[in-house]
């Protein structure tokens, strides 16, 4: 008697296929820890690239990720050595020019120790150039004025790509709190951004995180981070500021030794691009310009800072009575979470489009901050969600009682056909 699958009896061939797939599938095994770690690294990198909160994701942190895995997994110790175990070496290796000899983790450590001013080093760990997800080194450095974590991560970006540009452009202040940020062009054509910010976007602990992101014209990417604590998270503040000045950070990122290590990394030409796929986003519409065009005319001053991504955009509006941050996500193929997002209370329009509205205290907001949201999904899974705060940034206190746009206006914007043209 064939077993049934969802009420339909399987043919004998299907039944055997199913059993054999199971048997064959079960013979595959990988280093799961390495897979998970590398996946989380990609997630963090994705967040870093966005440098903003998504309305839906609700993540406003400028998550730290050193390239190539200067990744400290909070609460799970710094197990980068074991987590970084090779996940398999790519077969897609460029053969035109042989890669230079690999740079070992120990060499990475020696390089960093040599480049730092005199001091004591502890809690040192590193990965070499041929280990996935990429070379990095981290240690605790004490120049006599307090222990501080420092890390260097190395990787590659596509030269001239959005990723390359985005890596060295200072983020908009709407979503990232920082004291200073500047981008400098070096004589060799490299761009280096130094950002002096905070580990926690809501500043619940004032751990300072300063970083330098350097990208060369060839796409070599060096990421240096330092904190005024002995660990990224969960360690008490040990000094007023991280040990290296902005200029020192810039110089450290520019050291030639890092580029040699990057050149020694195996070429991997068959990796899926990190951008959200067409199946996750609406395509290539730029969100902020459409949002701008849908605003009620002539009433608002609109920020320049607007996001530049095809699935998410935002504007800060000011009608003279205080700032309002408006954020929009446009997503395709969201049917699978429709039930979760649109409960039984959702309004259903004549064409089947569902509309849900929420007016709630802002999750991350300061005093008096509220978030108004209109969420819409069409029958084919295309979703537009627009949210608005009565403050200019997610963590700020309210600047006004109600946000600038009414719920009716938000609804009209969300339901506009312009998002899908």
């Amino acid at each position, binding site marked *: 008697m064939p077993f049934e699958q*969802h009420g339909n009896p399987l043919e004998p*061939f299907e039944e055997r296929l199913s059993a054999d*797939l199971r048997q064959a599938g079960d013979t595959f095994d990988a280093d*799961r820890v390495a897979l998970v770690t590398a996946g989380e690294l990609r997630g963090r990198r994705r967040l870093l690239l966005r440098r903003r909160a998504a309305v839906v994701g609700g993540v406003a942190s400028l998550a730290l990720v050193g390239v190539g895995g200067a990744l400290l997994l909070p*609460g799970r110790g710094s197990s980068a050595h074991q987590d970084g175990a090779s996940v398999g070496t790519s077969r897609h290796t460029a053969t035109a020019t042989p890669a230079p000899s690999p740079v070992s983790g120990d060499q990475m450590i020696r390089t960093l120790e040599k480049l730092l001013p005199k001091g004591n080093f502890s809690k040192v760990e590193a990965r070499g150039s041929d280990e996935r997800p990429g070379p990095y080194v981290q240690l605790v450095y004490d120049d006599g004025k307090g222990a501080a974590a420092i890390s260097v991560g190395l990787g590659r970006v596509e030269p001239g790509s959005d990723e390359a540009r985005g890596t060295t452009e200072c983020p908009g202040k709407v979503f990232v709190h920082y004291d200073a940020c500047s981008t400098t062009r070096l004589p060799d054509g490299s761009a280096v951004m130094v950002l002096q910010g905070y580990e926690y976007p809501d500043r619940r602990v004032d751990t300072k995180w300063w970083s330098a992101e350097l990208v060369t014209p060839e796409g070599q990417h060096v990421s240096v981070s330092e904190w005024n604590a002995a660990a990224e998270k969960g360690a008490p503040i040990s000094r007023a500021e991280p040990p290296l000045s902005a200029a020192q950070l810039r110089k450290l990122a520019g050291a030639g030794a890092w580029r040699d290590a990057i050149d020694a990394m195996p070429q991997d030409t068959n990796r899926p691009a990190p951008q959200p*796929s067409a199946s996750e986003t609406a395509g290539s519409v730029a969100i902020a310009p459409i949002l701008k065009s849908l605003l009620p005319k002539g009433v608002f001053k609109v920020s320049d800072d607007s996001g530049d991504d095809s699935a998410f955009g935002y504007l800060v509006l000011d009608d003279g009575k205080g700032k309002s941050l408006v954020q929009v996500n446009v997503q395709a193929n969201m049917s699978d979470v429709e039930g979760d997002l649109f409960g039984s209370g959702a309004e259903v329009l004549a064409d089947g489009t569902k509309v849900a509205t929420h007016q709630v205290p802002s999750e991350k907001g300061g005093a008096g901050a509220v978030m108004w949201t209109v969420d819409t999904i069409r029958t084919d899974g295309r979703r537009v969600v627009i949210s608005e705060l009565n403050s200019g940034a997610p963590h700020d206190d309210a600047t006004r009682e109600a946000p600038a746009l009414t719920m009716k206006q938000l609804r009209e914007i969300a339901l506009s056909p312009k998002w899908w043209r």
Partner: protein
Amino acid sequence: MRQARADEYAEFAAVRAGHLYRSACLLTAGDTHLAEDLVQETFGRLYVSWRRVSRVENPAGYAQTVLMRTFLTHQRRRSSTERATDVLPDMPADGRDMPLRLTLLEALARLPAKDRAVVVLRYWEDRSIEETAQAMNASSAAVRTRCVRALGRLRELLGEDLGEYARP
């Protein structure tokens, strides 16, 4: 990501990694390097939207869907026309079930990517036609057609007596 949520994500990822990887190996017809890449990319996407994902009824199923779409997107990028994979399956590391695995993977490798996705969802994931259609963002009718076509091709490649033929 807040600590509690980060821990929840880490636990989920640790539990699901093995199954996702095995699914990816079947989807890629044994290209374990690509499978690792797909799983990492899947985890990256789940990490970014974990807050939302953790609230859906079946995060594990959702993760599989993300993997499937990541795979299909990868295939789209690779080639504008649908075609069977040109990568031969990797040799098994330990020799377990080698004849079965090789035979089956070679047959899977000869299917177009979308047909392979249908087979994996239907017969490895045990999903219904409707659920498969939803995961692939296709109509039920299209999935049914693909399924019939893929089964026909596999029958051709493996013989009607698949079990007998494939097992050592």
